[in-house]
């Protein structure tokens, strides 16, 4: 089967006047359907640039990027937008939900752009279905300010799912969450991955990366390590451990 993502010798050079910043220096990478990859690295390692390239938010200076067989390099701003709308889902560190807008309307957002999303009624039903997947259908009418961080991130995941994307891109999705909620969110990702969705996430937490199937480590714009995770953590088991630890703490008190 053809890979979903094919990067060939990707370079990205930022030209800010006098100084040239070579953020990514030749990354070659393949990603198949159903993969769950964590991209790790120190700040300035080029992982964010790589994510922006994968997310079609930015075009590489050199190299080719085939997304689902389509060469992305030659597309203009609007074509990239349509591609993002049709094939990619985004989850951000800061959730990035529209404030004073209900969870449901937030999830509807991607379907209001692009074409072929059906009638207002179908969009609404699809949005409710996505909220159901992340277990928040009861909170459809809540505003982000009425939801906890974990719940907000789940709304953001539901929004990313709205267009039935080829890949879900998550940029430090647990960066703003406590460890227990992080495990919860990783549980949602693992569930989605089990259902066949390809996920790429950036993280700098090793234990979070351990929930993924594949770890890619970057340094100075190059891939220095690309390994399959041998005995990855399962969110369900980790959750039980956490509960046990909590119970323990209370007992010993």
């Amino acid at each position, binding site marked *: 089967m053809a890979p979903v993502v094919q990067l060939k010798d990707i370079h990205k050079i930022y030209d800010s006047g006098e100084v040239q910043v070579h953020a990514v220096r030749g990354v070659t990478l393949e990603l198949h359907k159903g993969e769950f990859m964590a991209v790790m690295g120190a700040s300035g390692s080029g992982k964010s640039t790589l994510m*922006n390239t994968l*997310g079609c*938010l*930015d075009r590489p200076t050199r190299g080719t990027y085939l997304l689902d067989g389509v060469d992305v390099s030659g597309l203009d*701003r*609007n074509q990239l*937008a*349509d591609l*993002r*709308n*049709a094939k990619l889902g*985004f989850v*951000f560190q800061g959730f*990035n939900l*529209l*404030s*004073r*807008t209900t969870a449901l*309307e937030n999830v509807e*957002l*991607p379907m*209001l*752009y*692009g*074409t072929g999303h059906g009638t*207002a009624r179908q969009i609404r039903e699809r949005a409710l279905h996505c909220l159901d997947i992340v277990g928040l259908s009861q909170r459809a009418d809540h505003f982000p300010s009425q939801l906890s961080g974990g719940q907000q991130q789940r709304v953001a995941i539901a*929004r990313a799912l709205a*267009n039935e994307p080829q890949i879900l891109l998550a940029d430090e999705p647990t960066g703003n969450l406590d460890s227990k909620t992080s495990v919860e969110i990783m549980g949602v990702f693992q569930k989605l991955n089990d259902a066949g969705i390809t996920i790429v996430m950036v993280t700098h937490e090793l234990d979070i990366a351990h929930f993924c199937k594949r770890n890619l480590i970057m340094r100075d714009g190059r891939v220095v390590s690309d390994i399959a995770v041998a005995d990855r953590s399962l969110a369900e088991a980790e959750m039980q451990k956490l509960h046990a630890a909590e119970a323990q703490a209370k007992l010993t008190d």
Partner: protein
Amino acid sequence: MRFGSTIIIALRALRRNKLRSVLTALGIIIGIGAVIAMVSIGNGAKSQVEAQVASLGQNVITVFSGSINTSGTRSGWGGAATLTLDDADAIAREVSGIAGVSPEVRDRSQVLANGLNWNTQIQGESPDYITIRSWPVAEGSMFTEQDVRSVAKVCVVGKTVVDQLFPETEPIGQTLRIRNIPFKIVGVLSAKGFNLFGQDQDDVVLIPYTSHMKRITRRTNIASILIQADSPEVIDKVQQSITDTLMQRRKGRDQDFTVRNQVELAEAATKTTKTMTVLLGAIACISLVVGGIGIMNIMLVSVTERTREIGIRLAVGAHGRDVLLQFIIEAVILSVMGGILGVLLGIGSSQLISFYLGWPVLISTLSVAAAVSVSAVIGIFFGYYPAMKAAELDPIDALRYE
């Protein structure tokens, strides 16, 4: 689909900031309200003046006798006794396109009737006078051509004269003594009110001009001639033709009369109110521009404040055009809603003004339609720049914006 959903998106965005939306629209509400109120007041004043001008009669041309030069001392218009009945007859005979002619003789005199007396204006006119002045008789009838020929002692009295002399009795058929000559009252004129110069037009007694000249003033000349042209289009032609006819009768002597038409008077009278309307309108337009700048200001703040939101929209697949459209639609919705509310405010306040101050107001549908479309244009014009800034944002920068 895209346009429809963009409207939904814009409405949702406005709803998220209700108070700010209302405050933003307030500038336009007040601006449009002021325009509507000012224009209504201006139009009301204009229509009042026009009504007064119309009360002078339709398509009226007046010939005044001229100025006279007595050994170097020049009198004003009407000073010379140069117009005669023959002049009036010549106009009636030779000028085409006229609907009526009335030679005029005027005099003030004390009149007695019903045991009361009153000083009033005695006017010698022809029966055409009431049609020329569009001034119908309320009771009885106008004297006739026959009365003119027979130098009859009949008169038609104005409303004020009736009020003063016949407070309780019926005036028709009674006798009115002018310089001790008894005139029979055959008709009462309808009330006409004050003219442009504040004179009471109803304080008048009309008698046949022949009776006036032969029985009261014993003059052979007339003061002026009132002529009614058939239509507004022929006024200039008729005026020229009257001048030509009279000049021909003067056989080469200098012109000793002047011919004026009502259009000139109407123009002079409406000029002031026109100036006022333009002035008020201009002031109101300034407030509209200020309102528009208010919208632009808020939209610019809004774009900066919502940079992340724009980033999210761009990330999930909005084109620059979608964002542009969203912000323009937001601005247009704000300004059109403001425009509609402003129209209501303007109508309401002009009604209040007319109710409490008694000023005449006239709300024209044209100004309402213009106000609403102007507000839409303001929305597009002042919304475009902020919308452009939003549409040009880079999604990565916008998402990272703190």
